[in-house]
């Protein structure tokens, strides 16, 4: 399988195709300057309230346009949600049950299909709001950085919360985990 000599050869050819094998590192004084510029160009670290971030994310979704991006409500038992667009400069407030409790909808869903950028989940548990038996969500481009949309995987169960039809890019949604589940149960009374 992966450790066949052919793979090693292919990896070696791939590494040899690196367009930038030896970029010289930044000069120490240039790096010092860059770090200094960074910490002086802005106020001390700030945290934006999650609600604001969600509003910004929702606005971004509208601007991006096209596709199934808005909450279309339930239609034949299907709820359609969108993932918030990436907002890397935003800092998410620490997720608390109180913040989470403000979500319009919250549910646990298992991914049953992923195709053409649309993820279909089967609802396995409802925490809040009107949630259809199936939920369609637009697939995100993966990264674990806060502010990046979730990348869904087939068969995996996710805990998801949404405001205004948009799944926020802060940590109020993610793969089912004991930590997130505890927050959901505290927020919505299990």
């Amino acid at each position: 399988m992966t450790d066949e000599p052919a793979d090693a050869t292919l990896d070696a050819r791939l590494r040899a195709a690196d367009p930038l094998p030896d970029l010289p590192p930044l000069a120490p004084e240039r790096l010092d300057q860059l770090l200094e510029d960074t910490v002086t160009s802005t106020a001390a670290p700030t945290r934006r309230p999650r609600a604001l971030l969600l509003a910004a994310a929702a606005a971004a979704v509208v601007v991006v346009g096209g596709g199934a991006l808005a909450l279309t409500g339930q239609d034949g038992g299907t709820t359609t949600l969108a993932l918030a667009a990436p907002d890397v400069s935003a800092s998410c407030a620490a997720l608390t049950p109180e913040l989470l409790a403000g979500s319009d909808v919250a549910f646990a869903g298992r991914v049953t299909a992923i195709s053409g950028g649309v993820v279909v989940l089967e609802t396995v548990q409802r925490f809040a709001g009107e949630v259809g038996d199936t939920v369609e969500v637009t697939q995100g481009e993966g990264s674990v950085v806060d502010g990046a949309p979730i990348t869904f995987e087939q068969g995996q169960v996710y805990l998801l919360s949404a405001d205004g039809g948009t799944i926020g890019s802060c940590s109020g949604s993610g793969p089912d985990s004991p930590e997130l589940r505890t927050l959901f149960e505290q927020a919505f009374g299990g």
Partner: protein
Amino acid sequence: MEEFEAVARAVVEPVRRYLHRRTDAATADDALGEVLLVLWRRAADVPADPVPWAIGVARLCLANAERSRWRQHRLAARIGPAGPEPDPAEDVAGALDDAARVRAALTQLTDADAELLRLSAWDGLTTGQLAQLLGITPNAVAIRLHRARGRLREAVQRQDPEPDRTGRGKGRA
């Protein structure tokens, strides 16, 4: 502050190389500044291994830069998965010729496959780091890498019908 400096010094070169491999020098410098700013503002969110996290931020910064460029309908040709301009001298040497073939083959793959292979082979991210960056399990990374390698191998063969190291000198010339 000291925490930020330690993290910034640990990630600055991997992030710079990541960016310079994928875009022109000016865009790479801008994006590096943005990444450092995010690291500074969000020091509390940086995980134990900051490299995949910082590359994830760089990736989004680059995507945003590309999007705004695309919107402005300018400079579009300067950015793209092909990376920096290849050295014109490279056609001279056979080994570098192969590198050009492999890069051409990469462009035949889906963006996700090609980027996974670049992150692994060029940026040197481990399976664990790729898992952190992509938010998937190491097992899923291994499977995706295996499939992407298979597709790359096919694409390379389409670029060059003669398989590497074999087939040459066979048959009648």
